[in-house]
């Protein structure tokens, strides 16, 4: 890691001011920041430690939904009885992520900002070309080993996958990211790479994620997060799906359904086409499988990641069928 200075912010305001300096970065759980600092991807001059700030780790869950402070740890949220009851997919997305140790360290705010696992992004000394790290330098991944790269939302500038699990569940249930007084729907929080893959979220210099808010909904309450990967544990998703379903009073007609994908796209990916085609229908295996294929409309393969285009709809279908009692 490049040498940096370190100080503990006494308040959110002080932290916010400090990050206006070029070269200053906030330090929370550190699991992404210190990892990337070791890789030489991030080279902060100053780390502003916010882990000691009071109040930013609070959680409340009530009939309206959940508000979760940015400094709440992944593990705390995963184990929170209220979250587990009202937002099973959210709790599962967290408990299926990383390891118990990392979940004790990483914060919810930091988790939303975790960076891609693209191998080319992570080795700046070897692969100087990376538009995400160094705008305009090119993309080393295109034409390389792309087994873990995105098939959705890619551009000619970047095919790096967003590795998040939590954000996928949040996107499905229309959560908000709170940055002090500013509040942004999480789907709008993440940006497509386009020509500027270095610009990943709408977070502005000096802004701090202070928390997330997840509105309660019957679909969120009846939800699941399904994560498929090579290894049984401690691995990012090859493909994942957050799905929640609300049925009509008849118990079988779909009133509301939420579908989002992870591990396959450059940002957490809401699959509205799948949702639209199933709302108002009674689920059956064939219809669900057909609808799920809409989740990868427009997908582009770069060779090694071709399997994701086949895999993702199957993950979506299984998650829907599971919640529909058909799996």
């Amino acid at each position, binding site marked *: *890691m*490049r*040498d940096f200075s370190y100080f503990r912010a006494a308040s959110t305001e002080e932290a916010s001011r400090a990050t206006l300096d070029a070269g200053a970065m906030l330090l929370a759980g550190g699991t992404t920041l210190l990892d990337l600092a070791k890789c*030489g991807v991030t080279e902060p001059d100053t780390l502003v430690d916010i882990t000691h700030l009071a109040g930013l780790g609070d959680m409340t869950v009530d009939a309206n939904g959940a508000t979760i402070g940015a400094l709440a740890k992944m593990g705390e949220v995963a184990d929170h009885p209220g979250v587990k009851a009202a937002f099973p997919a959210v709790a599962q997305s967290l408990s299926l992520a990383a390891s118990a140790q990392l979940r004790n360290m990483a914060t919810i705010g930091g988790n939303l900002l975790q960076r891609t*696992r693209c*191998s*080319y992004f992570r*080795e700046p*000394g*070897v692969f100087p070309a990376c538009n995400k790290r160094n705008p305009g330098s090119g993309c080393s991944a295109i*034409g*390389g*080993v792309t*087994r*873990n790269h995105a098939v959705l939302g890619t551009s000619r500038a970047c095919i790096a996958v967003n590795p998040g699990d939590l954000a996928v569940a949040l996107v499905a249930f229309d959560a908000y990211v709170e940055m002090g007084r500013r509040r942004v729907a999480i789907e709008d929080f993440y940006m497509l790479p386009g020509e500027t893959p270095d610009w990943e979220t709408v977070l502005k210099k000096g802004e701090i994620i202070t928390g997330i808010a997840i509105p309660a909904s019957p679909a969120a309450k009846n939800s699941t997060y399904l994560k*498929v*990967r*090579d*290894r*049984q*544990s*401690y*691995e*990012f998703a*090859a493909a994942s799906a957050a799905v929640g379903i609300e049925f009509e009073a008849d118990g079988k007609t779909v009133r509301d359904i939420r579908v989002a994908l992870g591990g396959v796209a450059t940002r957490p990916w809401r699959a509205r086409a799948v949702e639209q085609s199933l709302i108002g229908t009674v689920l059956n295996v064939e219809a669900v499988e057909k609808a799920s294929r809409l989740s990868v409309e427009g997908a582009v393969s770069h060779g090694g990641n*071709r*399997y994701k285009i*086949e*895999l993702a709809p*199957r*993950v979506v*279908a*299984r998650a829907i069928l599971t919640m529909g009692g058909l*799996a």
Partner: protein
Amino acid sequence: MTIMETRKHGDAADGMVGGRFSRLDGKLKTTGGATYALEQPVKNLVHAVLVQSTIAAGRVVAVDAGKAKAAPGVLSVFTPEDDLGLLVASDWFGNRPDNQPFHPLPREVSFNGQAIAAVVAETLEQATEAAKLVKVSYEETQPVTGLDDPNAGEGRLVDMLSVGWGDAEAAYAAADIRIEAEYRTPREYHVPIEPHGLTVKWEGDFLTVWEPSQWTHGMARTYAEWFNIPADNVRIVSPFIGGGFGSKAMGYTYSAVAAAAARKLGRPVKLAVTRPQTFTAYGGRAATRQTIRIGATKDGVLQAIVHRGASETSVLADFPEQTGAATPLLYAVPNLSTQHRLVPVNTVTPGALRAPGKNPSAFGLESAIEELSYAIGMDPLELRLRNYADHDYQSGKPWSTRQLREALTVGAEVFGWSKRSHEPRSMRDGRQLVGWGIGCGTFPVLKAASEALIRILGDGSVEVVSGAIDMGQGTYTILAQTAAEVLGVPAEQVDVKLGDSSLPGATVAGGSMLAGAITGAVHKAATAARDELIGLALNDSNSPFRDTGANTLVIADGRISVPRGEGPSLTLAELMSAIGRDRIETQRNTLPEGANGPEDHKRSWTTMANIEGPTAGDLSMHSWCAHFVEVKVDEDFGTVRVSRVVSAFDCGRIYNPKLAESQWRGGIIMGIGQALLEEGLIDERFGRVINNNMGDYLVPTNADIPHIQVISVGIPDHDASVLGGKGVGEVGIVGVAPAIANAVFHATGKRVRDLPITLEKLI
């Protein structure tokens, strides 16, 4: 002379040989007290960090170290410009060119990730960051990146690996049933949890190296030759090794760099290879491909095996990963031909990784045998038993012991093989497809000499001393058991000192040969100590046994007494006190008389030239195993999970079943990783392994591993070793990957012939 009666293994909980004695080093390892190479408290230490090449082939034109040198705390930057004054050292067999200079930081780049510079600074952080500031300019040439590179060619036939008898081609052509298939394995890596590295200190012309070492004496020789100093001037200290699996049996270029830097700077140097750097600082298992053709009769009698294999090696040195290593051994076949080719590519020179050769070889053969079973429509267990080899067809010699039939039958019974339905896709557990498969394994008995020192101390305690090492196989523990049994004392009373090249000589902890070699030496030295003690007890003028009229004495449970008689009974401490001795020391080795001089010692302890292969004598000696595996496959996702394993082993007599079972499971688990997860992903544009970390090169987690039942069906084999054991460590992995591939075929009807079996190959 004391005659020891061999006890049946596996049934005792005490510290005698065969007992399930807990690890002697358990307390140190569970309390953080076991000190590994980079943890030695050495004063005035500085830190070295490597800079590796970012191209696969070409030449270093210039190294701009200006910024690095100006960085805080930096003491020196070593580059190809620096002549470190080293000489090329011997290979494993003791062959050495005369006075050839050795440049561990070369100008010519032959693989991506080759060390070309090193930065030394006061702190680890300073050296790490300054290493990023070293700018290297290259003149690139076109690399050959792997076996599939169009410029790689067919490679060179390695004549000495060709094996054949009968007329395999003709017999294959004439066979009723013929199968042919190509099998492939990728680059695989050791990934010990302790990354490589070393701490080095010079005192004048004397060099101390704390480095994880599977072979302290062999590595000491290497350093002495690099620096052209007497062998006795080098001391390798390696009491604990955080996993080796074949990767820690030699000094590597970074070892030379660290030692040379320490000499130039006049300060001790610590060099920690980073986890990403470990993927190219030394070689893993080479990628292989092999084509197997098997001809058989309609009722499943093998007629011919024709095998053609190839492995990649580096452009710097030959390291054949012998795809034909297991092919001639497992089955009775009247006609056989195997050949192996070596294909040089721009990679780090591959190395020995758990069961080199035997492992990929068995993947090919044991997959092909099950393919044959489906071609014939015969149960794969029955096919294996029908073609059981009653002797070694390759050497023509009888087996010493071969309980492979028992492994197959006992394993099958415990696993419940008879309940299997043969048709693929015929077994299910809910949504999941279920598959059962078998894979057999073999590994040769290699024999080597070693030396040990036994001390009986005045307090009655015993010390076993040897330069042999323990990287987790349990050397400390089984040597305590061996000495305890011979000397009739509780194992708790025995201390064992290992892992230091200044101690008595020992062969490499590799090829599953150390346990057999070093228990033999300890047994011999302990027997001599016992005889000496009894002699003193009978003859010393102050001994209470002198006037008993006994002509021998027995030692048991730490007491010495007259056999079957009334008379004195003393603890060893009481006897030592009575005869006025504070120690009895005996040092013995297992070299033959007449070949036991200093040159013989050097050759035996520091090279592999004297190691005897499995057919050096009148018999053919090998360890054997049979794995029975159940997999569950989610067909929608292509994910395979191993749900059950039963493995039966013939490794001869087991000195400590508790430890041997751990080692077998460890091999099986590494085999599960090999089958389902492990693959070095090479970017062919750059010839670089891009998943060079533990988040991307996946090894199994706890959640990937079901309960694994291991069974010993071995019988003591005293031709293989003094105490009757055969090798344990390597054979466990052999046959696991094909067992899983066979189970996946049984589950899904899809035959995956290239490892690992990842989900995209099944959806």
